[in-house]
């Protein structure tokens, strides 16, 4: 049985805390035996009681504390229990964490990771199911990263903790229970996979020996849906799809997408947020800006709500 995304994230936190005494965890209800609302921090307070700090319900202060700790030599990892609550940390991320390094002329570093679960279909209702990560895309000085089942989430989170700059780490709730995929096996049998050599890699999944008809760009949990759709299109309609899967949402780095689109000229972006001004909109804008000849290109965004 393959490891789950949840276990890999938990493992990454264990390893980071074991190998670096500067790593601290902060968040609401993260102590054992509860171990966090989604159990990502389970076991950590038992093993590292001094370095796992359970906070009051004070999201702004949680990220503010992390900022201050980071400015003074620590590597805090903050958990925001639901991604919907990022509205409460916007000031700390935008006007503090993301600003300090540039504003203080590179005199300081702010190595914080803010982890938070986003996304719906768990029945949590309107204020506990949103995908609000797009609010933080394009904030200078802030990275936005999202794990998936293809890259190792532990590797991604470890890179995030080792990063000297502030970072929002967006975990889709439906990913936690998902098993990691193994190349050439199961659902990946049909695909050839190329991974970029970056700290937050992107992946290109293609079907060998056939020219692709369509490119899908996506991230996080929606890769699960894109993959199922690509297999269905292949089996039922003989439509060949290339999926470009991103771990790094911001800053935008769309390199492999350009190559794929030269072959397909058709791009579908998939994200769980709303339609307007989202990740997909920016992806398409950049493709359009980067091409002098768009004859025959077609673009579509998939989203959850038209808003």
């Amino acid at each position, binding site marked *: 049985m393959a490891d789950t995304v949840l276990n890999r994230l938990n493992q990454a936190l264990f390893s980071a805390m074991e190998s670096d005494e500067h790593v601290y965890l902060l968040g609401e209800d993260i102590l054992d035996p509860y171990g966090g609302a989604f159990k990502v921090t389970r076991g950590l307070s038992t093993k590292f009681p001094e370095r796992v700090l359970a906070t009051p319900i004070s999201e702004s202060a949680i990220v*503010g504390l992390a900022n201050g700790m980071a400015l*003074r030599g620590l590597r805090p990892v903050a958990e925001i229990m639901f991604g919907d609550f990022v509205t409460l940390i916007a000031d700390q991320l935008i006007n503090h964490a993301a600003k300090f390094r540039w504003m203080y002329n590179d005199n300081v570093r702010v190595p914080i990771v803010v982890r938070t679960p986003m996304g719906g279909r768990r029945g949590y209702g309107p204020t506990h199911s949103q995908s609000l990560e797009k609010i933080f895309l394009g904030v200078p000085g802030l990275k936005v990263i999202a794990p998936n089942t293809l890259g190792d989430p532990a590797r991604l989170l470890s890179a995030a903790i080792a990063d000297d700059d502030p970072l929002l780490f967006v975990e889709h709730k439906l990913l936690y229970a998902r098993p990691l995929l193994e190349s050439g096996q199961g659902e990946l049998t049909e695909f050839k996979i190329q991974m970029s050599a970056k700290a937050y890699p992107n992946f290109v999944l293609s079907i060998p020996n056939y020219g692709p008809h369509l490119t899908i760009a996506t991230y996080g949990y929606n890769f699960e849906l894109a993959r199922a759709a690509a297999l269905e299109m292949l089996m039922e309609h003989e439509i060949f799809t290339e999926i470009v899967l991103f771990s790094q949402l911001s800053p935008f780095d769309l390199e492999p997408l350009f190559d794929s689109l030269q072959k397909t000229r058709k791009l579908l972006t998939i994200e769980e947020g709303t339609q307007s001004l989202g990740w997909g909109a920016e992806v398409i804008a950049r493709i359009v800006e980067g091409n002098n000849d768009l004859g025959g290109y077609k673009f579509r965004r998939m989203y959850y709500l038209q808003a």
Partner: protein
Amino acid sequence: MVNLKHILSMRYNVPVMDNNYALYKTMLIIRRFEERLLAEFSVGKLVGTTHTYIGQEADAAGIFSVTNPEDVVFSSHRCHGHFLAYGGDPYRLAAELMGKSTGLVGGRGGSQHIQWRNFYSNGIQGGIVPVATGMALAEKIHRNGKITLVFIGDGTLGEGAIYESFNIAALWGLPILFVLENNGYAQTTPVEKGVSGSMAGRFAAFGIPVWECNTTDVLEIQSSALEAIQHVRSEIKPAGLILHTYRFSAHSKGDDLRSQEELESIQAFDPLKLHSPRLTDEERTRADSEAMAIVEDAFIRAGADLNPSLNTTG
């Protein structure tokens, strides 16, 4: 009872008799610096905005005469006085205000966003307080005896983030001094229209002890600051220091709605006038000429420095 003279002479290794002179000179440097700054704005040599500390000098002078050099400081939009009293270089500050590459942060921050050694400032009301609280946590973890000071004003009492910070600082026993300078106005809004209830009561609600000064006498402020700081350092717990003071200048530059009568009446609380009788004529003259020379040198040198290249600012 705190033996102030003993502590000061131990800390600075200077004769105690210099305390009055040192406080006066610090206040005077701040006053002259800010006056020069406003003058530069009025002739168009400086652009943007700034918030001067004129009238409040005794707060910074008193507090930073009893901190340790390695203590951590987070200041606000009105940071010049704090920075100069901290021991910061007036020339580097002047260069920063002018956007010069020799400025404290290369001209990127300007008036409200500076950083030097363990001194930081940001122009966001309230948001700096949880950051400073995290710094206090880090220094407690490092076990190095440093405390953190964070500066807020009466206007900041409207921001929720500070109460989250008070709560956590008290719960976790964090060595932080919350310095509340009540200058009576949040920009143009008088404190009566912005702050309900009691200022000290806000700290008391979280079990944080408070030292409160209803004076602009730098010696009284120094004495209270010392007690509050000693509490934070020795108990490894938060404390509040409330300083009721007067801002003589506008909030920034052209936004003063106060009556001429009010502006004249508060001159009675000028901390320089209150303190200067404690100096001899010779000391006053010497302090005047030294402060003037320091400020003049700062602005002349900074004015001659280069602007940063375009691709490094945004």
